[in-house]
């Protein structure tokens, strides 16, 4: 490949693919694809569980270890965030927020281990957004009653009904696409960069750019972007649910 190939378009092409399918089987007519996303999620699940077990090993009331300080800091920070954003009565919601944040950020950061980001598969943020969607409407019905909930769609005038429905449906779509888009665009840009750098290296013959430059960009696209998207996702989840909770309106 010559450097001119980069401008002409590579004969191989830069192909951004979806997650690989490791195994595929049918259950009652539904095709289950055991994709990279699922398997990597299992790995994350295992690692997070082990980490949590290690963090909470022999907790004490005084003379505590640094590990316990970290564990208590995580818990109190998440509690503080949830209490501030959603109010005290959502205190018990904190573990879900912590889990969502952790799953999202580790799902993005596995790209640094050379694996495919879980969040670069649209289905993962979509699943979380669907959970948020269900929680939003569940909270709304619980606090306003089914009548009050349905009445909310023709508020302030019945003409608004289609717009209100669209607005409600767009919430999970925008949330999941925002998260997916950010991570996957980082992945695409990184792929393009590697392609370009390898083309330059081939033309010059010295691999000086492939060392260093990707690391700096990876710092932004993986670490910073991964953190930001996870944070945005949990903040949006808390804000939407809290907004649906009538107790916060007073």
């Amino acid at each position, binding site marked *: 490949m010559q450097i001119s190939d980069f401008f002409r378009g590579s004969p191989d092409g830069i192909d951004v693919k979806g997650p690989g*399918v490791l195994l595929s089987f049918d259950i009652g007519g539904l095709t*289950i694809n055991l994709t990279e996303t699922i398997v990597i999620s299992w790995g994350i699940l295992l690692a997070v569980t082990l980490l949590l077990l290690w963090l*909470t090993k022999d*907790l004490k009331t005084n003379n505590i270890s640094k590990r316990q300080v970290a564990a208590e800091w995580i818990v109190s920070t998440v509690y503080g965030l949830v209490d501030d954003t959603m109010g005290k009565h959502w205190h018990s919601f904190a573990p879900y927020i912590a889990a969502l944040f952790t799953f999202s950020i580790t799902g993005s950061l596995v790209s640094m281990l050379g694996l495919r980001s879980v969040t670069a*598969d*649209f*289905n993962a943020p979509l699943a979380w957004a669907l959970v948020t969607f269900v929680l939003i409407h569940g909270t709304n019905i619980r606090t306003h009653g089914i009548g009050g909930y349905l009445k909310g769609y023709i508020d302030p005038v019945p003409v608004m009904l289609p717009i209100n429905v669209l607005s409600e449906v767009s919430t999970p779509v925008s949330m999941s696409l925002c998260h997916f888009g950010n991570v996957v665009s980082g992945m695409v840009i990184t792929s393009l960069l590697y392609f370009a750098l390898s083309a330059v290296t081939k033309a010059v013959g010295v691999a000086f750019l492939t060392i260093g430059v990707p690391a700096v960009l990876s710092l932004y696209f993986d670490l910073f972007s991964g953190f930001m998207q996870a944070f945005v996702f949990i903040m949006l989840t808390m804000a939407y649910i809290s907004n649906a909770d009538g107790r916060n309106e007073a």
Partner: protein
Amino acid sequence: MNLNLDFLTIDVGTILFTLINTLLIFLAFKLILFKRVDAILAKRQQEVSSTYSKADDALAAANSDKEKYAQALAGAKEEAAELISRAEKKAQLEGDLIISEARTEAADVREKAAAATERESVQAKQALQGEITDLAMELAQKIMEKEIDKEDHDRLIEDFMQEIGTEGEQS
């Protein structure tokens, strides 16, 4: 198997698995991290409040002890003062008694001495009288026994007088 899903697919299987995995991670956070840390924080809170209440109790006990000791000390001071005053009174009484006894005794002694002197002087007087009588008798006898001239007479009287003088000096 080198198969990939399309870049943007909605795959129900992946969504289901992601939901299950999310639920499991949620449970891991809830049952491991939050439950344990909550428990330890509650326990610490309890320990702190129990320590505070213990400290309050100890302070109250110390204060009541202090009051008790102050009272006891005041009582002891009073008692000591009373003891001292009682001892002083007693000493005063005893001293007075001793002095009065001494006075009585001294008076007795003086009286006895005076009586003894009196008696002795009476005795001496009586003895003198007796002797004078004896001497007079003797003189009379002597005069009666021999004839007495003028010279003898004078000498006799002078002897007699001398005898009386020595007798008087002796007694």
